[in-house]
């Protein structure tokens, strides 16, 4: 490590990027129902995970490519987290950052174990928990990056005081974005044998209500954050835009999964061709919806951090 240079922020950014790719792979694994493409864990078809023949993986079946790729990325993210923890422990005096990094290490270990349990037990319930812990880890990684940058703990662009109502709305947005991902995970990891149409109806209602809440909060955050620091303003605008895209993707995900809801559109708008199951376009829309949901969560963490989530109580409400 170069003396004098603090690697915390670059490593945190690397962790955020690697986790985003990992989450993309995870979402694709669910979309293609590829979780059981490798029946053993932590080995891959008897090989040490890292020594599984590259060609057999890279040029192999799509499901194997996704599942083994997800595992390799998971291991990589685990190693980056450990490296970040080491750097933070040596170079970072902030108790908040240290606490978050400890949480990240614990979460990445739990997440790895959950991934293994999902395969070994072939259990959809574990898959659902695994799908909820992933975004949680991502949120923590984003928080570390947000706190260690120029606008972070001791950054040069950090404001002297924060607006209480902006902070409240951004924290509520963060919570709503996570609840949305939890509700979405229930819809994605459907166990046809265990979920009744009535339960599914409630889950859809929860997801739609969550969408309305996230949209309302993200758009309410824009005027509230407008008078804040440039970073807060930027994040509020980015999230408001992402939410618009997310609503469109959500409608698209519904359409490619179940068609046009009857009675919602004029009959003349109903496509004459049936939907194509397992089409690349459909998979991209559904997976994109999940990934964008995670990006909105990450953005909400960055926004809430910029709005003073990790600030001392006395710093809040002074603006």
């Amino acid at each position: 490590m170069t003396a004098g240079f603090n690697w915390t922020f670059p490593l945190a950014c690397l962790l955020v990027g690697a986790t985003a790719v990992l989450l993309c792979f995870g979402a694709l694994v669910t979309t293609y129902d590829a979780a059981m493409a490798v029946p053993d864990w932590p080995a891959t078809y008897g090989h040490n995970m890292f020594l599984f023949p590259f060609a057999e993986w890279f040029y192999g079946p799509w499901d194997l490519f996704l599942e083994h790729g997800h595992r390799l990325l998971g291991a990589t993210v685990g190693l980056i987290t450990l490296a970040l923890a080491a750097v933070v422990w040596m170079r970072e005096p902030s108790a908040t950052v240290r606490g978050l990094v400890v949480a990240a290490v614990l979460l990445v270990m739990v997440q790895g174990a959950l991934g293994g349990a999902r395969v070994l037990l072939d259990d959809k319930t574990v898959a659902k928990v695994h799908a909820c812990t992933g975004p949680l880890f991502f949120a923590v990684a984003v928080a570390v990056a947000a706190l260690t940058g120029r606008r972070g703990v001791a950054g040069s662009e950090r404001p002297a005081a924060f607006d209480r109502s902006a902070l409240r709305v951004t924290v509520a947005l963060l919570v709503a974005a996570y609840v949305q991902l939890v509700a979405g995970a229930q819809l994605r990891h459907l166990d046809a044998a265990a979920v009744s149409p009535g339960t599914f109806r409630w889950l859809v209602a929860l997801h739609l209500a969550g969408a309305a809440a996230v949209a309302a909060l993200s758009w309410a955050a824009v005027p509230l954050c407008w008078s804040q620091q440039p970073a807060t303003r930027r994040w509020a605008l980015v999230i408001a835009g992402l939410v618009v895209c997310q609503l469109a993707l959500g409608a698209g995900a519904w359409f490619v999964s179940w068609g046009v809801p009857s009675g919602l559109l004029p009959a003349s708008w109903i496509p004459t061709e049936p939907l194509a199951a397992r089409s690349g376009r459909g998979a991209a829309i559904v997976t994109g919806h999940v990934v964008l949901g995670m990006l909105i969560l990450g953005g909400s963490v960055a926004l809430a951090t910029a709005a003073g989530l990790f600030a001392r109580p006395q710093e809040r409400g002074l603006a």
Partner: protein
Amino acid sequence: MTFIIMHRRTSHTLAGLAICLTALTGCGKTPPAYFRPNMVEATKQRLTPDQEQQVSTILLAMFGTPDEPVCLPETGLDEAKLRLAAGPVRSDIVGRKNGLYREHCAHCHGVTGDALGPTAAFLNPYPRDYRPGVFKFKSTERADKPTHADLVRVLHKGIPGTSMPSFALLPAAQVEALAEYVKYLSIRGETELALMRAYFELDDDAQGKLPETREFLIDETLAVVADKWKAAADAEIQVPPMPADIDLVASIAKGKELFYGGKANCVKCHGVTGLGDGQANDYDDWNKAIVEIGKELSSGATAAREASTSGMSPEELAEHRGQLAWLEKFGKVLDGDALEPRTIPPRNLRHGIYRGGRRPIDLYYRIHAGINGAPMPAAKGTVPPEDIWHIVNYVRSLPYELDGELGADKPMLAKDRF
């Protein structure tokens, strides 16, 4: 340097919330998949818990479980294909996938094929319930089973205008396996229905138990159901080819005449405009069964409420209480095991969306044999084959007919079409 400590209450609240939400998603291990008993029929037939258990035990022996299907030779099914489609989703190192039904179908059609998958309530029309063994879009006569090729075709092409997608992107072997599994679920469901209805015909010597003999279970029950599927292969409708020198304009005019005429009487349901605005308050067989049970329950409940118990003998009182308990149980069963009945609107023929396929021969099959399970009647016997071709030609021309030509006596503006 200023140390910024995250406000403890906020951090603890957020962490607690995240942990609670995550934990809520997974309380307990997922139970193994099972075939859900047909409780609507069991309750309708007033089966006792012991009888329900006997049916379940027999079905387990004859058909196995969703994870471990049993394929008796009498079913005529291909066990290798069933094993490809059954069980949980998994794939091997060369990409061969198992559990195809659970991957592609079960979320709508249900693990049992009872159309009670999680998403079913959101779909219109509801997904098909395979258990009565009734299929709509086929090349066989109305009462016959579809051929294997019919099922493969529906899977391959999907059903336009519904949520049933096309599985054309799947390898042919996977589509074949899915079609075989649909037959397996249908044979299982029909066998279950036959067993449940057989209690009604038991004599007193049987003491309320079905005979567990090969003769009854295989020869008289399973084979009767399976043979209908086997017979479908040779039951394809023989369609006379459309005359090669047909005058299309004259044929369309003749078809229009038949459409509005009393013999074919298509106008009754599809309406004078062809927009499907004729008689539109009917149900298909699956929904009609639930509607009729609902009516029976409603009238039974009224009668039970109005009955005076004061002059009843102990036996009559016990019977009255039994009736009330049965009504209450049936109400609960309907809540959990049946979806809200929906009417089936006649098809709007001006969209050019034909659920059973758009080829002329598909329309010929629909008109000739009707649509099994739906109010669409068969024209066979009423309309000669060459006239059916005229109706086919007229129906195919409807999406392109000009506004002024709409209907026999009711011109319609374009804005009113949809």
